[in-house]
């Protein structure tokens, strides 16, 4: 049987079908959580922001227009929710510019993180907030450039340059010898 599109499920949910929502939730549960967690860098905050994002999505379901791609609509709501949170918490910045390092990690864990994957994660964490946001929408959400631009509220060229700068920085950090 053909898998139903996000937009079909969304229309069914907007009409009152709970199962359609459950299907959408199952589909986007992990990627959305990953995006929010890696964007804000703190699990407790991420849990709150993730739940709050879904609450906003649920509230906004009647305003969804069927021809709009669901994924972009959903990520925009989540992105705006995270931004609002950080604007309220720290008016001078939109996002923490650098994630707090996990000081609770034991020696073995720290050793394990010396691998390439751990270095990648650390490098992403250290990206400037705007570049990290754009990159995560590409890597985790899998959005295309125009949609990323729309979610971030910038033009397409700005979105592209943020991702390019982020990629260049990551490559540079990953090529450096581990230390």
């Amino acid at each position: 049987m053909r898998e139903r599109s996000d937009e079909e499920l969304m229309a069914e949910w907007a009409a009152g079908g709970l199962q359609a929502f459950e299907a959408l939730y199952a589909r986007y549960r992990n990627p959305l959580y990953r995006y929010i967690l890696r964007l804000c860098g703190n699990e407790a905050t991420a849990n709150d922001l993730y739940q709050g994002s879904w609450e906003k999505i649920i509230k906004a379901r009647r305003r969804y227009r069927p021809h709009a791609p669901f994924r972009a609509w959903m990520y925009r709501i989540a992105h705006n929710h995270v931004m609002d949170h950080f604007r309220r918490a720290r008016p001078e910045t939109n996002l923490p510019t650098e994630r707090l390092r996990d000081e609770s990690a034991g020696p073995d864990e720290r050793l394990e993180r010396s691998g390439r994957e751990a270095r990648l994660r650390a490098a992403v964490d250290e990206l400037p907030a705007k570049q990290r946001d754009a990159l995560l929408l590409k890597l985790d959400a899998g959005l295309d450039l125009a949609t990323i631009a729309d979610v971030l509220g910038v033009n397409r060229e700005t979105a592209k340059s943020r991702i390019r700068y982020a990629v260049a920085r990551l490559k540079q950090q990953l090529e450096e010898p581990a230390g």
Partner: protein
Amino acid sequence: MSDKIRKSEHPKDLDDGLDHELAGIREDWKRLDPVEPPELVDRAVLNRARRDLEPARKARSSRWLGGLATATVVVLALTVMLDQSPPGVDTTSEPLLEESLRKLPTPTATPAMPAETAELEDSSPARLSQDALPPASPRAMTREVRRQEKLGTADTEGKTLPGAEEWIEEMLALKRAGLTEQLNEEMTAFRAIYPEFPLPAELAEEQL
């Protein structure tokens, strides 16, 4: 959603070589520890979605119940209307009586009742159905008086009943028509209301 998002569905807009640049990083990124929301958060979100749909579901079920309730009320109202209609007078067997009744003046006095009750009566479906019926005959009125007597609501003053003289006229007409059975019935009713009223000799015989 803005035009930018709609435009994004166009294939040439997708990447601008970024996907190629990201290829190596994407592979490593996928291998990172999978993260997922805590089960409690999942449950909270699903419950929130369920609650959000509750009003619509309730509205749907109450619409169904509303229809059922309306149908029930209509059936009950019809039942009450039919139940309250006065029993039909058998006009085929009483042509002379009908003729004599037509000559009688229509009773003008109505049972006295409080204003509120009168208003309710006037607007009730039963009242409307009675309005649509032909004027009640003295016999029907007598039955009604007896019924009200049983209920203790009858006004025993003469003003609420057909006049005794009129009633006597009616009974005389029945006697002349040879409708003995109906005459006896009327006589019994008459005596129940006017126990002391003197009867003409012609009817006094019947009473014996």
